[in-house]
């Protein structure tokens, strides 16, 4: 596994400024992003609500994206240019996704609404192009028992809320960042307060607007926390502070969730305030741990390739995993054609019970095919040479081209050694090398 620090010959404009200055990807953040994606797929396969507590993926994704956004905005150049680049990377994969999904829907004879709703329908259809709102999709299409489940469109539209929320966060980021720099603590905690108002039924905003506002509020604290991470705020406050208050937020989230369980019980997806508090506290801890790995430690090294792939294709994996899941069902259904299976009650019972497991096994090869076939949109959006399968240990060439989750490890490292007041401000943290230099001695040999 060699990692040479050759700067990319074809660095896109505006992204190479740090790469040459010795900055690399923070593989810790890459690992988090890969974990988040894995958790999303697991959750959508097995529908285990407790997974949302084990690893609040969406909060983590927004926090990572927030950090990234702050980093981009810190670069020289206009904010408008940054926004344009960021949005381009989001939209191109979305358009490709929309093309495929709408194509199949129209082939299934889904037709525009008529009469009074027609104008609104066409307007909403534009949300497939610019995701400021939820685009229209049929709740049921086709017939039960067909190749595709009648509710597939609803499932396929599942990931879209994330893109909508992300889109809004990106658009508002320059403003949010200004607010954060002016009033850091207020801006950080305000979304939690907003969630307590709009996410608890205290104030009910109806319809799609309500959803958008709620999502913005729920994950706003995580996004701004990303800013805080980028600005090194977590390193400037005493080190005991963040790990002490993070669990308090998580505890509040647990308490709220226990009092207000969703329709499926312990599932943060249905408990906005619980989600906001738990995710925020969880991300505080994750950022606090933040070891700023230039390379993955030995025990994760074997996942190096997969983590690189997941980070290079994060949007694609996120968008297409639902399609892959939808596709697994008709494939598994093929097993019913084996006479031995439908004849034997044991085997058929077994098959019936093992659908989630089979789906989980099958979703990965399908997802691989989809990512290989359609992932190039991400390269295109990043103005990079399209690659079929960007797998493998992290190389510098990837740097500067890919942004879903790029993090400046050098910065984190700097503030760790210089910014942290250690030992009551005596600067002992500046000698990390001293740790372990002294052998474990014994007064009593």
């Amino acid at each position: 596994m060699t990692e040479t620090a050759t700067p990319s010959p074809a660095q896109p404009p505006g992204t190479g400024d740090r790469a040459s200055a010795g900055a690399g990807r923070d593989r810790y953040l890459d690992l988090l992003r890969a974990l988040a994606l894995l958790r999303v797929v697991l959750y959508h396969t097995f529908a285990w609500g407790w997974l949302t507590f084990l690893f609040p993926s969406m909060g983590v994704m927004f926090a990572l994206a927030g950090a990234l956004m702050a980093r981009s905005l810190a670069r020289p150049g206009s904010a408008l240019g940054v926004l344009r680049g960021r949005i381009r990377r989001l939209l191109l994969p979305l358009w490709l996704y929309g093309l495929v999904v709408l194509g199949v829907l129209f082939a299934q004879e889904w037709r525009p609404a008529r009469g009074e709703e027609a104008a609104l329908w066409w307007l909403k259809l534009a949300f497939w192009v610019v995701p400021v709102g939820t685009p229209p999709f049929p709740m049921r299409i086709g017939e039960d028992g067909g190749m595709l489940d009648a509710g597939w469109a609803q499932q396929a539209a599942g990931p879209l809320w994330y893109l909508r929320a992300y889109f809004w966060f990106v658009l508002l980021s320059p403003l949010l960042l200004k607010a954060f720099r002016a009033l850091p603590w207020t801006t950080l905690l305000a979304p939690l307060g907003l969630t307590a108002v709009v996410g608890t039924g205290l104030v009910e905003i109806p319809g799609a607007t309500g959803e958008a506002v709620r999502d913005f509020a729920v994950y706003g604290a995580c996004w701004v926390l990303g800013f805080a991470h980028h600005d090194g705020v977590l390193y400037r406050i005493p080190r005991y502070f963040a790990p002490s208050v993070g669990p308090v937020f998580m505890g509040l989230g647990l308490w709220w969730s226990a009092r207000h369980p969703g329709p499926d019980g312990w599932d943060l997806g249905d408990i906005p305030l619980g989600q906001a508090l738990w995710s925020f506290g969880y991300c505080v801890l994750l950022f606090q741990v933040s070891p700023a790995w230039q390379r993955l430690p030995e025990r994760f090294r074997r996942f190096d390739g997969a983590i690189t792939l997941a980070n290079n294709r994060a949007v694609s994996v996120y968008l297409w995993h639902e399609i892959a899941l939808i596709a697994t069902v008709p494939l598994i259904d093929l097993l019913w054609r084996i006479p031995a299976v439908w004849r034997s009650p044991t085997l058929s019972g077994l098959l019936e019970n093992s659908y989630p497991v089979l789906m989980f096994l099958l979703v990965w090869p399908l997802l691989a095919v989809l990512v290989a076939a359609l992932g190039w949109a991400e390269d295109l959006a990043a103005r990079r040479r399209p690659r079929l399968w960007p797998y493998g240990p992290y190389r510098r060439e990837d740097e500067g081209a890919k942004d879903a989750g790029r993090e400046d490890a050098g910065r984190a490292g700097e503030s760790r050694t210089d910014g942290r007041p250690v030992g009551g401000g005596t600067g002992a943290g500046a000698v990390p090398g001293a740790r372990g230099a002294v052998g474990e001695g014994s007064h009593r040999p």
Partner: protein
Amino acid sequence: MTLEGHRRSLLRRRRRRRLRRLLALALLLTAFTVLMLRGYVHSEFLADHRVRPGAPFDRVPEEVREGGPVVDAAGPRPVGHRVPDHMIVLTFDDGPDPEWTPKVLDKLAEHDARAVFFVTGAMAARHPGLVRRMVAEGHEIGLHTFNHPDLSYQSKPRVDWELAQNQLALAGAAGVRTYLFRPPYSSHAHALDNESWPVVRYAGSRGYITLLNDIDTKDWARPGVDEIVRRAVPEEAGAGAVVLMHDAGGDRSQTVAALDRLLPELKARGYAFTNLTEALRAPSAHTPVSGPELWKGRFFVFAVGVAERATSLFIAALTVVGLLVFARLGLMLLLARAHGRAARRRAALAPEPVTRPVSVVVPAYNEAECIAHTVRSLVAGDHRVEVVVVDDGSRDATADIVEGLRLPDVRVVRQANAGKPAALNNGIAHASHDIIVMVDGDTVFESSTIRELVQPFADPAVGAVAGNAKVGNRDTLIGAWQHIEYVMGFSLERRMYDVLRCMPTVPGAVGAFRREALERVGGVSDDTLAEDTDLTMAVHRDGWRVVYAENARAWTEAPETLRQLWSQRYRWSYGTMQAMWKHRRAVLERGPSGRFGRVGLLLISLFTVLMPLLAPLIDVFLLYGLLFGPGQRTVAVWLGVLAVQAACAAYAFRLDREPLAHLVSLPLQQILHRQLMYLVLLRSWATALTGGRLRWQKLRRTGAVDSAPAGIAKPRHMQGSTTV
């Protein structure tokens, strides 16, 4: 030692260590298992309170819906039998209940009636005696599942499990099994629907006769005695009936009173009260159980019995712990105030301040990181000192560094590695003054520390003075926890012990001794791992006073990793136990030694050895309460205790003039740090019980504390401003 022998001794040591770990683990596990078992039979988990609403009934056979309440669904043609005329089969569900079942049984016996009891496994396991009595008095027992879920929601394996556990409890309690079954929430035969019928069907396939009812008295709703009696009488005079009543699940006084009227009234009308098989002239529902099945049942019921009793024991223990915790807190707070007053009085009464020079002994082993800071801080103080650094065979440049400082009044004594006690004794031998201050090589003094530390020696009765050790590296989480612990625990505790005249430890980090006292007790001993505690106890027993000088602050570097913290505390707690054992005879002695033995050793064993041993109970109960409820109340109680702790901590911080910011870590400290501390103690106990001696485990130093006025805290102290 031969290689073979060496290997064997290694193996033995490893085995002993494993044994120790196992012992500690087994203790906690047992406590938790017992609680789990209790939760299990109290239906506090796996509980499923859903009841299915009505459903279509087109798949229930006509013969069954129109048939009687005794459903035999074993064969291909299920059928429902009726009870013959002039027969009433009373059935009691959900018991046995310790209060009401005996009363029901008494009434039945009084009127020579027999009935059928549908017991749940959970209740049967908890009250096996009542089940035995039912069988002995000729009543029949039926299964009512283990903990009363609506079986139509449950999978087949769960239904099997419910029935099997129910039989197990029955076998353990009364030594029989039964083929009678009644599903929870069941009713008349014609109320069977597409959801509930499969359960009856399935039970039938397993060989059970399902007994539904003809008449539901709904006595559980407590409609009044008259109403229950009215409902229980069959509408058609002389018709046989299966009557449903309850002997558990709340206040059943109306049921008992109704029985008292119902039995004679209906008997007068020619009814007989029999159990089911008597009414149907069928073979008894009971089959004796023998062999392994019987023993399995008996073991289960026995274990549940232990759990039932053990939990009351736990609760008693918890009360004791709670009282101890609060008594200790209260005592500490009260005496801390008294200490402040006494210290001021002492200062005012002192004839003249102690100004004569003192010797400072610094035992150092591999202290290259910190030793320069330490020594500089000592000579920079406002009291005249002579510093003796004893290099205990360091492998690093400790001694050279000190010599390189070229400070007057600082000497280095080198010795081959012989341990801290030997280094201290060596240093004492080289010291020339009659007051000896002992400092760890990783500790930094303020300029006034030594002056404050030696003032109490103006009183000739004082033999030793403990200083106020402070955590220098308090910026990390683990540092903040220890800071809280030092201020709230050690500092407050020392004030209390000072007033009670039984200070157990003059900390190695900062303490001063009168040479005469040291010589009389024979110097520092290496009998225990906590040589400072051992020495302090010896000084006490020699009749000296040991006091606490709270303004003699020394900044020490606390362990920065859990592993280091663990080994440090393990050494402390095991060393304290060793020292107490060594000085155990003090309890019986006369004079100051006896006083220390009876007051000091008692308090120390109570507060630092016994109480923390019971402390895990608090957390086991917290976990139990969270898992099985009442969750809200558990959390509320825990938060209440936390609030009390926080208030006390705030007071302690005020006394020590520390900023309150670190208290933000208190909640987490209470969930993580405290647990670590009692795990350490458990392990020390295990070590003490299995025997074995601990190696001195030295901390790795990072040199995080390099000057006393550690940025945040010192300047404020020096300005004398109040920081809270």
